[in-house]
Structure formats: structure tokens, C-alpha cells
């Protein structure tokens, strides 16, 4: 006798969410249109749980939704004041650990990190600003690497390996010494095989990897987060395409 497979559900806040075997909590939530804040997760790319913004409470225990498998009966707290305050503190740390000067950054308005800070109501960095001195790599003719803004999400590392079939980037070092490196003998982007059409060149959720000469294609006021909120599901295609001006 064949029995119907038991319907499997998790409960996120007050919603029953179906899932299939192999899905993470994040996968199931996104499929059901439930937003869990995240910066280092991208559908189709192996999750790594770096940014911790997707931390949810699963049966009382904090776990990263992007790396935790969904299991029947889980009771998950997501959109709570406590978790959102913790997420705001994490976002403040991402800001103060780098040099995020929004008014002079060409990613402003197209930047998921900035949009996340708006979403969480961040008014200031709270923690002492670190003002780290990091190397800018402008060697490549069409792609800019400004490590000042890198949040070590590793999306470029994973996109290059898993989607582009290359191996352009890596994270070197540990803890506060961790940095984004380029896998070439010189360490320079110009000696790598990265191209502007690569996902690795377009996936950066901050202004660390930029396509040169296109930073102001869309004027401020007509950028992605002038028209969308980060808690809309499925914005990834727009991120990759980049904000376009009316005449392009």
C-alpha cells in the first residue's frame, strides 16, 4: 500500500510554512514569501552562514536560517523586536568595521547593506568606528575592487566557483585579519580571468566590487532601493541586472 507522504510544515512566527526534504529554513521561507533578513545568502548558491543576519530562534535556539535544514514541527521566531535589534547590532558592526561613507559611494541606493540598515532602522554605528586601512585594487580595466566596503560575505568567492566556473576570489586570514584576496600570483584583479558579465562581478551586496564606468547609469532617486524595499522577495534578478537609467 502506498501512503501519501505526510505534509511537512514548519511554523515561522504565526504562519505554517510547507517545505520539502532538503530545503533550509531560508529556502522554505522565501518560497512561501516570508522574508528573513539576509545579506550573504543568494538563491542557487551554497549557503555559508557568514553574515548571521538570518539568525532565527528555532525552538528557542538561535540558528542561521540559511544553513539550517527545515524539519517538521519546528517553531521558529523570526520577525521579533529582539531578533531585529540583534540584527541591527550586527549591521552596525558591519558598518563600523569597514569604511562605509554612503554619500561618496557609487553603490548608494543600489546597496543591500544600506537597504538592510534602513530596514532595521539603523540611525548610527553605535560602536567605535574602526576606519580600517585596506587595499584598493583598480588594476582591472573594467572591474573595481574596493576592500574598504567588503563585509566578507563571500558571495563573490562562491559565485565565481559555483556559477562562473572560475576561482577568482578567496577569503584569507582569520577573524579581524580576514580579507578578500584575488587568486592570482600578483594578487591583482587584472591578472585574473574575471569578466564584467560574471556573476562574481555583479553579486556584491556592498560597493566592494563595482563595474567601472557604470556607477551612475541610474541617477540617485531612480535606484533599486528608491523603488523597492529589501524585504521584497525575489529582488536578486534586479541586483544582478543593476539599476538602469530610463534611456538604457
Amino acid at each position, binding site marked *: 500500500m502506498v501512503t501519501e507522504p505526510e505534509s511537512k510544515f514548519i511554523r515561522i512566527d504565526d504562519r505554517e510554512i510547507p517545505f520539502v526534504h532538503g530545503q533550509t529554513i531560508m529556502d522554505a521561507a522565501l518560497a512561501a514569501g516570508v522574508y528573513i533578513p539576509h545579506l550573504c545568502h543568494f538563491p542557487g548558491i551554497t549557503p555559508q552562514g557568514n553574515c548571521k543576519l538570518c539568525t532565527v530562534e528555532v525552538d528557542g535556539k538561535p540558528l542561521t536560517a540559511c544553513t539550517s535544514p527545515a524539519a517538521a514541527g519546528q517553531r521558529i521566531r523570526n520577525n521579533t523586536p529582539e531578533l531585529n535589534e540583534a540584527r541591527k547590532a550586527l549591521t552596525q558592526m558591519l558598518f563600523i568595521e569597514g569604511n562605509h*561613507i*554612503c*554619500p561618496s559611494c557609487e553603490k548608494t541606493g543600489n546597496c543591500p547593506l544600506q537597504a538592510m540598515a*534602513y530596514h532595521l532602522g*539603523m540611525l*548610527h554605528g553605535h560602536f567605535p568606528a574602526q*576606519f580600517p*586601512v585596506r587595499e584598493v585594487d583598480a588594476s582591472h580595466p573594467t572591474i573595481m575592487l574596493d576592500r*574598504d566596503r567588503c563585509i566578507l560575505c563571500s558571495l563573490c568567492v562562491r559565485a565565481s566557483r559555483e556559477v562562473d566556473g572560475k576561482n577568482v576570489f578567496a577569503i584569507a586570514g582569520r577573524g579581524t585579519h580576514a580579507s578578500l584576496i584575488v587568486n592570482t600570483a600578483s594578487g591583482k584583479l587584472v591578472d585574473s580571468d574575471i569578466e564584467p558579465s560574471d556573476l562574481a562581478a555583479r553579486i556584491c551586496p556592498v560597493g566592494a566590487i563595482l563595474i567601472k564606468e557604470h556607477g551612475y547609469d541610474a541617477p*540617485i532617486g531612480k535606484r533599486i532601493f528608491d523603488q523597492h524595499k529589501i524585504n521584497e522577495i525575489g529582488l536578486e534578478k534586479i541586483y544582478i541586472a543593476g539599476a538602469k537609467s530610463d534611456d538604457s
Partner: protein
Amino acid sequence: MTHKPKLKLATTSLAGCFGCHMSFLDMDERLIELLEHIEFDRSPFTDIKQLDHCDIGLIEGGVCNAENVHVLRTYRANCRILVAVGACAINGGVPALRNHFSLKECLEEAYVKTPDMINPHIPDDPELPLLLNKVYPVHEVVKIDYFLPGCPPSADTFYRFLSELIEGKEPQIGKVELRYD
């Protein structure tokens, strides 16, 4: 009907560009309405140089030199509510781009290495305030009560914030719209 006493408001620009002050003026005719409830004390708008005890102090710009520290501490000591206004006050902003370099490098680049300079040397007039090693957010020097992000914060942001303070309400900054640029 008894009139409430007017709130005293002081403003200053430290390491800023006066853009926040210009945006404040963008409140245009709403300023007339505000002036029914607010009077200016020390501010570039009044040119009053001495700071009296005030209800609200608006600080534009980050902290880049010894005079900024002195002014900021004076505002903190005399203002019941001290507000960091704009990107530079909140995280150093564009002036903090110099934090990438040592102070010596910055001064040499500007006053020694610049081509075609007559008598190139780093200015050392005793009247000039000494520069700090870095540009700092104001909340790293004194306690700040409220933060108004933006480069600059919009006139609407100023208006909403001041109106809420006048009404004795807790300001709801960022609940309507946030912008850092």
C-alpha cells in the same frame, strides 16, 4: 490661553560643509511657523558667538580638530538635547576619507607636494586649531541624544523632528524614511 516658553535652539557646523544648515533653511515658510515655538541661540544663522543654556543643540559635521572638540563639549554642557545631524556628524562622512592616511601625509600632500607652491610649508600659525589624527563621529566624543541621518537630512526630516520635540513627543526618526546619502 498661556503660551509655552519658546524652546532655545543652537546649531553649529564642525567638520561639515554647511549642507545640513542649508537643508534646514529648505524648510522655507515652515520656518516662520517654527519660530513661533523656537528661538535661536548660538548658530551661524544668528552669528551669536556665546552659547547660553539651550533646549536643543544641532551638531553638523564630525570632529577633526581641537577646536571642534572644545565646541562640541561646550554644546553638550549647555544643551539639554544634543543631536548629531547628517552623515559627517554620525560617522565622519566624507572628511573621514582622510583617515586612510596619516595626518603628516595629508598635510604634505596639500601644502608641500602640491606643484607650483611658493614657500611650501605646513601652516603653523598658533591661531590655527590643531588637527586630530583622525576625523571622529561626534558620539565618540560626547553623549548624543538623537541622530538625524542623511547627506543632508531633508527639510522634512528636520521639520518632523523639531515638531515632535515641540509637541513634547518622542521623535520617531527613521520610521517614515531613512537615507544615508
